[in-house]
């Protein structure tokens, strides 16, 4: 099937945001863009929503890229049946991003997931209870991060005890000096 709007969308994004050209790809009716920081992400969202008619949102996927944390927002253009995914990456040490719940109320639970499961700080997100984790979930535990090991979590006490780091390998014995007497050859 041909999806002329998908090609048009890719072209428009390339033209408007030349720095993203290598990060924009298209497959069938799916266009994706990644490699965006928070500022760029907001500019792209503003452009696609207001200028290109990509008005519908479906979900947000959190991902752990080790050095950064990512949030993939899934949009679509209802009239053209084209899907657009925009990935914003934020530093792992300070994962702050402006949420879109105030524009798209259906993203509320998805952005709450980013907070609970990945430890994002989502600005503009309305107050609410934990979701999907229980209210008694210990602070600072983000179970969908790659370094969070379920085996270290005690469900009875709700405590996370990191595994002790493996001891450094014992120092290798010093190289034998040249003076060490060699075994007598047989």
């Amino acid at each position, binding site marked *: 099937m041909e999806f002329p709007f998908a090609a048009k969308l890719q072209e428009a994004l390339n033209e408007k945001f030349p720095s993203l050209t290598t990060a924009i790809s298209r497959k069938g009716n799916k266009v994706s863009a990644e490699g965006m920081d928070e500022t760029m992400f907001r500019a792209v969202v503003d452009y696609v929503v207001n200028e290109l008619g990509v008005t519908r949102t479906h979900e947000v996927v959190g991902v752990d890229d080790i050095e950064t944390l990512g949030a993939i927002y899934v949009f679509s253009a209802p009239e053209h049946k084209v899907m657009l995914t925009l990935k914003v990456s934020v530093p792992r040490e300070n994962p702050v991003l402006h949420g879109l719940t105030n524009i798209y109320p*259906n993203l509320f639970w998805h952005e709450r997931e980013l907070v609970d499961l990945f430890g994002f700080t989502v600005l503009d997100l309305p107050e609410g209870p934990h979701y999907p984790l*229980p209210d008694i979930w210990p602070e600072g535990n983000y179970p969908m991060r790659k370094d969070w090991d379920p085996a270290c979590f005690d469900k009875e006490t709700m405590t996370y005890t990191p595994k002790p780091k493996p001891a450094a390998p014992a120092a290798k014995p010093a190289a034998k000096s040249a003076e060490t007497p060699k075994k007598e050859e047989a």
Partner: protein
Amino acid sequence: MGVVIPVGPQHPSLKEPACFTVTLEGEKVVNAVVGVGYNHRGLEKVCESRNYIQTIYIIERVCGICSHTHSTAFCQGVEELAGVQITRRAEFIRVLVGELERIHSHLLWLGVAAHEIGFDTMFMYAWRDRERILDILALIGGNRVNYGINTIGGVRRDLDADELKQVIETVDYIEERLKYYIDLALTDTTLSARLSGVGKLSHADALRFGAVGPVAKASGVADDIRKDDPYAAYDSVPFDIVTDDHCDVFGRTVVRLKEIGQSCQMIRFVVENLPDGDTLVKVPRMIPKGEVFSRTEAPRGENIHYIRAGGKDKPERVRVRAATEANWHAVKHMLEGDYLADLPIIIAAIDPCYSCTDRAIVVNDLDNGSSDVFNWEKLRRYSVDWYAKRGVDIRDVRKLKEF
């Protein structure tokens, strides 16, 4: 000043945990807070420690009703990452099972919705007819809910001529019963009066809140992944997207009933045009690095699976956006302004999922410590006898062919 009533999390109208904190002024709901997440099972984290084949079995258990649509989304996503094209016969079988699943899901909903409004005769009828579909699904896949048909590279079971004949006989029966249901929905004044104008969701709000499936279609949104982003054999199977403009629970009822009719036609087409060939192609255990969004049209609407592969035999990330998750957002809007008495049917009208039981259970006898495994026939017989001892004897009724 309003009165605040928490409804749930235990049994807030359906047997599934969710809490609806509603503020009333008189009988009217002026504010509603939807609380979900009581049953988070951490399946996405589990998937990261299982290989792709093992993950199918996790994914199939995301939903206790539409298990096939989830495993289809996952398998076709992995197949896309692996660059594998499955056989046409396998694609047709995926459609066949998917549409049978849609019929059983909609009949299940019809029964639940009827029960919520006190129409228990309809509840009994709908669930009785649903059994015919479950029997066929058990024939095809060996189980009533988790059919285990899908695998990466195609389907695990083929259908022979006798099984296809039984599928058509069942579809004939369902189509006949459907005439009665549609006639009832469109002409019964009590049903219409009870459901019309309840749980209103305008076309604009359906888009704004991201509603999907019959909820959106009943507000005039003609979105259907089977047409918009065809998968399996849906590009070859003719059908119409059913929409309605009532924008209320009545409209959602009409859409689901008409969708059953569409599914019957599609199943008939699939059986008549089932291509020859194998049902499975080989797929490497190591899936190349990449990521994919895979979508399917579940009975409740659009499912989206995100799969990221890292070049190993386990997925790096799996994210499931089920259709019910999309529809929760509109519930708050639908509740506000309506009556408290309408709360159960409004919630039920989005058809939220709840788990079904398997056909075999283990019964432990606490007195002597023994245990016994019940297969389906034994469980059914036990049920019939249990009721017979208490004065409700349906054994004579069972002798009738029509039962």
